């Protein structure tokens, strides 16, 4: 019987931690806290208490206060609420947004929507390693800039942006609010929402061993950032996100974030050597390029381009043995990664890249299996393609 492929796609999603699942299960059935958290009776109060406890756990994990946490269905909704909600609220004072070319589609697509509505958006180009300097952000700000949106940890290459420095630039500007997509950050590196001076921050549970279908937007109370809601109904979440709260989901997110914060340092210490072992194994193939500045990358991600290998064939060849991604799992695999293209990689190298993302359950054996699978696949595909010198158009001589 064939063995299951080794899972190295934790940046796409993570399995729910069993401890988290146990917390969630206690909110579902008749003997648990199944009540509507908005109801004014004992069942509602029991659920509401769990929701508020989870809110406090999420806030503590990211350096915010509980009142700043707004539950959403995930980071995509949080990003939409941040970008479009700020634009709707502050549209009379300015119609310019600054963001990065390497942002997630959940930020880029709302920005495109703003452009359709007549807004101007500046898309900053990172350097070859994926970093954007605070000075670049400063230079892009206009008098009517109302929002800067920067991803903390990039979902494809794992680059960590200097959010505190960018927040300083925004603060000096005065009216440019800073939104940070931190969907990939929790459990990978430390977050400090308040002390960094962030106005808005998007979070996701399922990237951190919590359930899919829940996330949060953290909105600074101290900095009094305002939003217009995108959906209307029961007025939950201070009228910013109507809809009955999914108690089991937010409880899962709270538990997952608490665990992630507790194990943050040990996790990085354990995974960094695995990532390095993976890189050393792949590098020995030759013709292998690491994407993203290694000095500013989280331990969990390794993005690699393979020369002289066609991307779809590479992914197909390794698929029986390892579960990895080409680019982001959230976009179509049919197109080369726009993130790698923004870093200056050519189309072919962007296509022939693999994102390995390690996580809580990754082991040395997993890494060795991945190295073996990729080595077999790349060697075989290069053999089928023949030497690079032979691949010129037209007829040749045998």
């Amino acid at each position: 019987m064939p063995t299951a492929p080794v899972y190295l796609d934790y940046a796409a999603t993570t399995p729910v931690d069993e401890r988290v699942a146990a917390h969630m299960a206690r909110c579902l059935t008749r003997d648990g806290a199944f009540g509507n958290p908005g109801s004014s009776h004992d069942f509602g109060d029991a659920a509401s208490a769990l929701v508020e406890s989870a809110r406090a756990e999420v806030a503590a994990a990211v350096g915010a206060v509980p009142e700043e946490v707004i539950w959403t269905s995930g980071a995509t909704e949080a990003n939409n609420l941040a970008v479009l909600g700020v634009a709707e609220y502050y549209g009379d004072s300015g119609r310019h947004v600054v963001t990065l070319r390497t942002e997630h589609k959940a930020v880029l697509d709302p920005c495109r929507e703003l452009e359709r509505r007549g807004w101007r958006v500046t898309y900053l180009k990172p350097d070859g390693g994926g970093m954007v300097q605070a000075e670049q952000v400063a230079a892009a700000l206009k008098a009517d800039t109302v929002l800067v949106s920067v991803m903390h940890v990039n979902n494809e290459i794992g680059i960590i942006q200097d959010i505190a420095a960018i927040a300083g630039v925004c603060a000096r500007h005065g009216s440019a609010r800073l939104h940070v997509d931190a969907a990939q950050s929790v459990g990978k590196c430390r977050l400090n929402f308040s002390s960094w001076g962030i106005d808005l921050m998007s979070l996701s549970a399922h990237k951190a061993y919590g359930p899919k279908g829940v996330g949060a937007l953290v909105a600074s109370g101290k900095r009094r950032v305002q939003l217009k809601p995108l959906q209307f109904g029961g007025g939950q979440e201070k009228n910013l996100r109507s809809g009955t709260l999914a108690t089991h989901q937010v409880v899962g997110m709270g538990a997952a974030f608490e665990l992630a914060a507790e194990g943050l340092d040990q996790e990085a210490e354990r995974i960094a050597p695995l990532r390095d072992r993976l890189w050393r194994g792949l590098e020995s193939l030759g013709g292998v390029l690491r994407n993203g500045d290694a000095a500013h990358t989280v331990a969990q991600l390794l993005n690699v381009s393979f020369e002289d290998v066609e991307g779809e064939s590479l992914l197909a060849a390794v698929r029986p043995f390892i579960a990895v991604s080409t680019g982001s799992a959230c976009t179509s695999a049919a197109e080369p990664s726009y993130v790698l293209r923004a870093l200056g990689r050519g189309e072919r190298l962007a296509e022939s890249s693999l994102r390995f993302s390690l996580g809580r359950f990754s082991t040395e054996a997993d890494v060795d299996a991945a190295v073996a699978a990729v080595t077999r696949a790349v060697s075989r595909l290069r053999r089928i393609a023949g030497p690079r010198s032979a691949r010129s158009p037209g007829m040749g001589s045998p």
Partner: protein
Amino acid sequence: MNYSELTWRHFESAAAAGVLQGGTVRRGSAGSPTCGTWVQFDVQLGSGDRDSIIEAVRFQAFGCPHVIAVSDWVSQAAVGRDLRPVLPEPVAALRERFGVPVEKLGRLLIVEDAWIAAISPPDGGVTAGFRG
């Protein structure tokens, strides 16, 4: 992307991958790695009164699993056939046989071009069906 069993089998084995050498071998290629697909066929002909019979074929390919699989199948299916500037099966039939998505039709045409280039007369003459 999901691949048909036939595609997967030929992609995995690629038994005909390689090159041939010798005076009776014709070589032709089409496409370009920079465009994502490149295919080369080496076609070995018989000698004497069998000089129009294909005795062996090898291919090299830079491309998706469908390109590799179809090239491998063509290489095997052509053995023993007369030297003619057509694939053992038309591109449309190959697309159906391997379950190739319509958006990849252009890649199969590159396979066909490489085949025609390989078995065209050595003086470079162009035969019917050639796509430059």
